[in-house]
């Protein structure tokens, strides 16, 4: 109850403060869609708040060679080394060359930097855990963070991977553990509103598609002969195979599995981000409607945001669990058919 009052007080305080803030930069109408899409999408620099921007390195490769520059050298329509950001057209918001063509762009964008942060965090955490086990051996029970991580790792290894795949699960255990912790770290960092997090990685179709492709490889490339037989020559009446109806359906099924994995993770995380951003935008939409309205909507917005963030915390774990479990189940199905 005390904590609740505390939160309520902070909400009240924020609704007092925010209108004053907002009044300073009036005039330009607030574009909700643009704000939300800016947060969801990728960008060449990392926008933190107001004028605080972290410039990131851009790397483009073309036939002429590699060009590198910082993102603040091409902001606001500036041209650097013949490259600029397209204002409109097919490549709007992307780096193009003087002819308006798109080079091979491997810039360290916001999402790429977030990806590298996620990878670093994962490596540091898991390798330091491994170091703990190397140092202490198996006769000492861990406590604190190591113990908590051990519980999660053991849960994934035994209750997801072993339970879904069964015999011979060890071959896939490390891959699925990596997938689980990768998605979990992305999701959790995505929930942070400021710098080390905030990018929308698992809500990006490139990332989820790559993850799904790895699970496609894990499902299909290690499957026994019977799996391929069940796809191309399944145990069904001959007339279903003669006109290759069943094989076609089965063959499509091979690709719908990773596709559904891609879309599920992508849509869930994207939707969560959209809802939280929309609720936050509510404050700024109601700003022209007067202080009373704005203040009360701010309270509503903050409370809903609080609720949504708790929900997203659950979703972060849930989606990592679902992706891992479904991949493990598909692998198990391929092996035990």
């Amino acid at each position, binding site marked *: 109850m005390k904590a609740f009052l505390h939160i309520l007080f902070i909400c009240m305080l924020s609704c007092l403060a925010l209108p004053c803030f907002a009044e300073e930069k009036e005039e330009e109408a607030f574009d909700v869609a643009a704000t939300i899409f800016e947060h969801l999408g990728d960008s060449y620099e990392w926008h933190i708040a107001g004028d605080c921007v972290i410039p990131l390195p851009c790397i483009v490769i073309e036939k002429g060679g590699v060009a590198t520059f910082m993102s603040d050298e091409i902001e606001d329509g500036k041209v650097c080394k013949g490259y600029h950001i397209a204002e409109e057209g097919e490549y709007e918001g992307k780096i193009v060359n003087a002819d308006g063509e798109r080079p091979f762009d491997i810039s360290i964008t916001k999402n790429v930097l977030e990806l590298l942060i996620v990878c670093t965090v994962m490596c540091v955490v898991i390798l330091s855990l491994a170091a703990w086990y190397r140092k202490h051996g198996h006769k000492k029970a861990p406590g604190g963070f190591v113990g908590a991580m051990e519980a999660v790792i053991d849960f994934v290894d035994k209750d997801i991977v072993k339970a879904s795949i069964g015999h011979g699960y060890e071959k896939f255990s490390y891959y699925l553990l*990596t997938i689980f912790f990768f998605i979990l770290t992305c999701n959790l960092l995505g929930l942070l509103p400021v710098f080390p997090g905030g990018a929308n990685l698992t809500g990006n179709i490139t990332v989820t598609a790559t993850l799904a492709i790895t699970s496609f490889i894990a499902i299909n490339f290690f499957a026994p002969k019977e799996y391929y037989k069940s796809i191309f020559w399944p145990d069904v009446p001959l007339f279903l195979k003669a006109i290759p109806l069943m094989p076609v359906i089965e063959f499509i099924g091979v690709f719908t599995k990773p596709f559904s994995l891609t879309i599920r993770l992508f849509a869930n995380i994207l939707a969560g981000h959209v809802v939280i951003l929309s609720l936050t935008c509510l404050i700024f939409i109601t700003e022209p409607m007067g202080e009373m309205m704005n203040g009360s909507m701010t309270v509503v917005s903050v409370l809903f945001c609080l609720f949504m963030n708790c929900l997203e915390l659950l979703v972060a774990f849930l989606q990592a669990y679902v992706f891992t479990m479904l991949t493990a189940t598909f692998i198990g199905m391929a092996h035990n058919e």
Partner: protein
Amino acid sequence: MNLLTPDPGLLFWMVLSFAVVFLLLAKFGFPVIVGAINKRKEFIEMSLLSAKQANEKLAKIQEESEQLLADAKAKQKDIIASAMQEKQKILEAAQEEARSSAKQIVDEATAHIAAEKDKALREVRSEVAALAIDIAEKIVGEKMSNTAEQQRTIEKLIDEL
């Protein structure tokens, strides 16, 4: 829709970094952790098993020692009982022997006494006969011939007394 088109640059970095992270963790990270967890599980199971076995062993040993103690007690009782019996037997035998030897001694003594008495009587008798002859000689005043016939007569007279 910008959100639904994959970005080649991000794809490049994603593939690269995911591959690196996967290889790194699958080689140096997870095997160590999962191995340690599994080993500890085994270790705990083994410890429980050995503890159970030790308990069982202890119980068995206790039972055995109790059995041993009971056996020893029974044996002790047996030995005592047989010793008592032996003692009784020896006592009885000794008594028997004593009794028989005493009886023998008494018998011998009795026989001896009887023989002595006979002898003494006979001596007394012959002495008395001699005395009687002497007295009779003196009374009669004549020397009676000490013949066998006279002797017989005297003995007949003594017997009649």
